[in-house]
């Protein structure tokens, strides 16, 4: 029996139920269907076969184990999708990082207009870090004992998808983002404080200049007469 699940927020899932003695691997048509989602990862384990690509998965498993394996595959797909979303957001932030990095060293008057943008990007980095922190425990959990087919499929998929390693890379990348925006925030704050005190100095300069002009005009007028 074959059916396709296509919930709106879940990956498309092709489930093929078969008796253990009939399981001989996923058909070429099923693999081709999965390949439409991207590069295919395949695993075969204790009579079950799973092919997966971002957004699509096909399962060939005995009917009595379908629900457990299906749940394991869906869980993996959800985690992979969340991780990919964070990876995409982090990747999209690199051009901003390159543009903003000089501000972590030196902040100038002309950069005051960019303060709101810097704050927004700092908040975005923190939000990404929070999303990753919530996701990480699901990616690197210890193997279940005694193992089941579903838990082994899940573990194997996490290994093939390198979820734990990718989370580690993201952690490093987000540390760079946070470091840059933390320094930018510090520089911007220092600059704003310096600017306020400089405003006071300028006000004193203006008053002194007015006094000087009054004296100068008085002197010039007296010299003229």
């Amino acid at each position, binding site marked *: 029996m074959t059916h396709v699940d296509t919930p709106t927020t879940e990956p498309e899932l092709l489930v093929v139920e078969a008796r253990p003695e009939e399981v001989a691997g996923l058909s070429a048509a099923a693999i081709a269907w999965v390949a439409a989602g991207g590069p295919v990862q395949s695993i075969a384990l204790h009579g079950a076969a799973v092919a997966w690509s971002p957004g699509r998965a096909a399962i060939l498993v005995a009917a009595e184990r379908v629900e457990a394996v299906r749940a394991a595959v869906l869980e993996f797909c959800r985690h992979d999708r969340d991780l990919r979303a964070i990876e995409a957001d982090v990747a999209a932030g690199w051009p901003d990082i390159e543009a903003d990095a000089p501000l972590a060293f030196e902040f*100038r*008057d*002309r950069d005051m*207009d960019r303060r*709101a*943008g810097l704050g927004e990007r700092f908040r975005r980095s923190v939000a990404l870090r929070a999303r990753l922190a919530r996701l990480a425990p699901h990616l690197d959990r210890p193997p279940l004992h005694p193992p089941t087919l579903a838990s082994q499929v899940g573990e194997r998929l996490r290994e093939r998808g390198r979820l734990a390693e990718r989370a580690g890379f993201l952690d490093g990348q987000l540390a760079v983002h946070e470091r840059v925006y933390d320094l930018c925030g510090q520089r911007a704050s220092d600059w704003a404080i310096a*600017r306020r005190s*400089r*405003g006071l100095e*300028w*006000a004193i*300069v*203006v*008053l002194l*200049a*007015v006094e000087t*002009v*009054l004296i*100068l*005009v*008085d002197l*010039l*007028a007296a*010299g*003229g007469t």
Partner: protein
Amino acid sequence: MRYPSIDVLRSLAIAMMVIVHFVENLSAWYGSPGDGDLTAHGFWRPTGLAAPLFTLLTGVSYRLWVRRREARGDSDEAITRSSVRRGLFLIGLGFVFNVLVWLPEDTFNWDVLTFIGAALLLLTACRGASSGPLLLAAVAAVAVSPALRELADYDSFWTQGYFDPGLTLGDVGLGFLCTGYFPVFPWIAFPLVGYVTAPAVFPVRGGSATGWPMVAGAALVACAGTAMVARSAGGEPPAWLRLQGWTMFPATVEYVCGTLGAALLALPLAHRLLDRGTRDTMLTRVAGTFSRHALSIYLLHHAVHIWPLWIWGAAAGADVTTHWQRALPAPMALAVAILFLVCAYPLFRWLEATGRDGVEGLMRWLCD
């Protein structure tokens, strides 16, 4: 990026300036309405807005120019260097203009060109200052001006309504500071306020405009209007306010507040009306041409109507200034001014089409 609102307002200022100068220099002025003197009528009063609007826009344009250079990645040093060169260029051009147009005895009359040059130097010096101190400086410049004029004995520098200083360091210095046609005090208030206003009206991409220029403009107009109404009703203002009525020479507190307020109101209004819709209209094209060549038009219109007067006087063997303010009746002078403006547009369009630059091009070539 050009703002049609700035182009239109600058063109308006230039057109008013041209009309005022033609009528003032070719015809008699400060007569009475019965004499057929245009300048004595109430409708002539708005022409007093020309120079304040032009000098306010100097500050606005300088701020936007600096922003453009910074966005291009130019260093602070390069911007400062260009700014100082431009300021010095305008001061030098102002002196050359005075000598060639108003003859050498008026070299130090401190006209608008020398003032704008000096204002550019000052804006360059305090480019890093925040808005508060700059506004304080503008207020101080206006507030202290009557006292400075009193100290300098302003009236002794003016003969029959014209600035006529002695050629001494003291007189020349006082002319620059407070007694000339466009002295630093109080005129510096206009570019300073323009410089502070620019980011509020023309925010950076992603920022939002703020409404304080309109509020401040309305408040200033209201203050000036109240003072004028009170004066016309026979009320005597407190002496410490040093209110002297509505005059441009000297630029009184009422005049500065009224014209500054009107300019502050006009800028955001024009921005809302002209910068958000279709930018390529007949109005924006004409205004763009006049605005891009404002400096050239300023110089050219003087040469066109002043030099013939001097040549005519010299040819008649009399004093060269014999025909000054006597050449034409006022309506005729007004017609000639309009004719000049009509002819100037195709002339400067032709210059643009043939890739020729006016004095602005020379300034950019020398200073940038």
